[in-house]
């Protein structure tokens, strides 16, 4: 009897093996939300990175691939953080002198304890905090799929005007269900298409294109209250207005790099206002989970 049980056990184990034969690419995804609501669930991928991090461009490419698959529901944010991979070389050096770091990136990195665990790491809507919130790029896709299945709680609209230097930004929030809790709105500026040095595997790429790089936060890192009341009813709308001066924000980063950041060199300027975007998200202050995120160009919105 024992031998029979043993043989059955053996047989069942050996049959568990799947060799896949090409073509390996079998689908094109097509998971874009097609529900009839005005709002869809958008997902923020916070990509913690650094220009000296050889494996980081792979993570950035994974983010792009996920974006290509699911479209505008996927919003990326690249945070260059930490003193190991994001510190700039001294200005006397010919390369890697740019300081992509920001005050807020460092603050978020410290709070979520990301770069200490090694880069690249990402957070997908900051789910699974604390513990498993720092995700390797291999985990991003599954987490995105999980998030896409969640219901939409808030809708966000970004409106802005820009005169070449000053901008008025209006963020309008629609509650899509009755909920209670402490919800915060964070608004930041990102920049696309920054051409600068990046280590990419064994290559040092002078012409690497850095996208959706965090430039500045208009709110604090922990945001403003979405509503003054903890009870929010379906259909309610809240508006937040911000006014910013791009040159002031740029100078702040230069000063911060010069005076505060580890081995900072002040090389944080050169912003291209045409490539600046506004990124706004709402998170649940009880577990930091991001419930909605929206994205719009600053200059052409």
């Amino acid at each position: 009897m024992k031998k029979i049980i043993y043989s059955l056990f053996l047989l069942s184990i050996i049959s568990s093996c799947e060799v896949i034969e090409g073509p390996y690419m079998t689908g094109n995804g097509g998971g874009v939300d097609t529900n009839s609501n005005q709002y869809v669930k958008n997902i923020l991928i916070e990509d913690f990175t650094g220009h000296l991090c050889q494996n980081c461009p792979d993570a950035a490419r994974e983010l792009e691939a996920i974006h290509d698959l699911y479209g505008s529901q996927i919003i990326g944010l690249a945070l260059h953080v930490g003193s190991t991979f994001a510190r700039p070389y001294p200005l006397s050096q010919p390369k890697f002198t740019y300081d992509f770091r920001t005050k807020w990136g460092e603050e978020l990195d410290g709070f979520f304890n990301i770069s200490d665990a090694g880069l690249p790491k990402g957070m997908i809507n900051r789910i699974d905090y604390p513990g498993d919130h720092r995700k390797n790029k291999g985990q991003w896709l599954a987490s995105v799929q999980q998030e896409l299945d969640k219901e939409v709680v808030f809708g966000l609209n970004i409106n802005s005007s820009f005169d070449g230097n000053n901008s008025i930004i209006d963020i309008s929030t629609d509650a899509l269900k009755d909920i209670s809790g402490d919800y915060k709105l964070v608004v930041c500026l990102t920049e696309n298409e920054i051409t600068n040095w990046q280590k990419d595997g064994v290559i040092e790429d002078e012409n690497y294109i850095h996208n959706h790089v965090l430039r500045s936060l208009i709110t604090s890192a922990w945001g403003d209250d979405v509503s003054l009341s903890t009870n929010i009813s379906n259909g309610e709308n809240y508006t937040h207005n911000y006014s910013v001066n791009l040159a002031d924000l740029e100078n702040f980063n230069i000063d911060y790099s010069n005076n505060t950041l580890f081995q900072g060199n002040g090389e944080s300027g050169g912003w291209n206002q045409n490539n600046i975007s506004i990124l706004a998200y709402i998170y649940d202050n009880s577990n930091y989970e991001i419930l909605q995120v929206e994205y719009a160009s600053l200059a052409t919105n």
Partner: protein
Amino acid sequence: MKNISLGFILFFLSINIFAQNNGEIHGDFDLNMQSYIEDATINAVAADEVIRNNSFLNIIFTKNNFSAGLRYESYLNALLDYDDDFKGNGIPYRFATYSIEGLEVTAGNFYEQFGSGLIFRSYEEKGLGIDNAMDGIRLKYKLLKGISLKTFIGKSRTYFTYANGIFRGIDGEIDLNETLKLQSKTRYIFGGSFISRYQQRNNPVFELPQNVGLYAGRLNIINGGWNYYGEYAYKINDPVNSIQEDAVNYASGNAFTSSLTFSKRGFGITGEIHRADNMLLLSDRDRIGKAYIMNYIPTLSKPHAYTLLALYPCATQAMGELGVQLDIFYKIKKGSLLGGKYGTKLNLNFSRINGLKGGTSILNDNVNFTPEILSFNEELYYSDINLEVNKKVNKRIRYNFVIANQTYNKDFLEGKTPGEYGVINSTIGVLDLSYKIKKGHTLRMEVQTLIAKQLETASKKEEGDWVMALAEYTISPNWFFTIQDMYNYGNDDESKRLHYININFGFLKGANRFSIGYGKKREGIFCVGGVCKLVPSSNGLNLNITSSF
């Protein structure tokens, strides 16, 4: 997990009460506490907690053919050279096992290794902060004389939780001489093993295998002083879960190891070769990091214990390497000119490890690449040639002398950009001298030197030359005192020509051992058996207590 642990404790207590007269309880305890203060000269950071502590207590109850045990672990918070996911307290290890009529049943946690570990190794190594214990069911059965089988099903531990993959494994071994009652002088032992990992996958673009299988066969032939061991392992496609075409690799993996040893009294020689290609097994294909590695490619270089010999250690590359090793041991007879009164032991060791031609195997819709099997003229990863002389001169004096030349591809082994540090060649000498002053009083001294040069022009300077000295005074059986200094006198950057001084003293009595130390540790790479971790620099006090009952 907490409820299960509580259940086990109650279970324990009850069996203890019922079996007080004929069961036995044993255990061991370990405490490692370290303080961290800031030291900008060596980039050491202070810990917010000031002190950090790792501790564990093992308890094992045994009665006849039954045993059960648990391990309580505490990381408050984990020492800085540990992954910070080791956090808090818990009982991550508990098991019960019994054996009857050739069948051994284990429920709960267990460690397991098939063959030399090429397809599966579940183990713990406290020094590296690795513990990938299984949690599940394991059966071992002696089918016939000389034939043994083991199977298991379980999940593997990562920190205080379990990884996603479910492992199923089976291993069989047959000792032909025993089974067939052969009278031959040559012994043949065959083994075969199979592992399968299940992980659910839902990739919208690529078809991924949910069940990844690995198998291995091994052979051991023993005849007198001769011993041959060979093992071949294969892994089916195990692509990562990505939607980037370049990142998804459907190539299979394989590895082999083969060694031949001849030994007789006073002489031994071993020749060994191994190769691995795309042979990394993870407990969760979406993750990276040593906590998730579930197989083991045995190291091919000599494990060195002396500090400067281990300054540039060799990390095994499961994704692709080819290496050879030759190890010769010879004892010069006592009474001869070189042997002296007590004889002299010599050990010559050579190892060389290089990459695979063109790199790791790749298979996807656009690329189908498999490297040549044997190509020894590829990028050098590591080589080491060393001679060790061990001699007892007289009743008071004995020494161990080592001279070595090592070549270390820092850019590759430490993941730097090619051209950053290049390849480091170092010549190392070690003299370890023991002098017995009187009964119970021994003075041991080490002098080590390392002369390093960068073999190619590189954009950054490596640390350069080192010298180290150590003095240890032992009053057996209770006391020891140690002082050591490592001095980076040859650093190109004068501000980094630093002394790393450490002092240590300890007290041992019976089953208890206490030691206290203070000093600076250099940032470096620490390896056990080719598996490595980065140790951050630190400055502070440490306390270590071990005890057993």
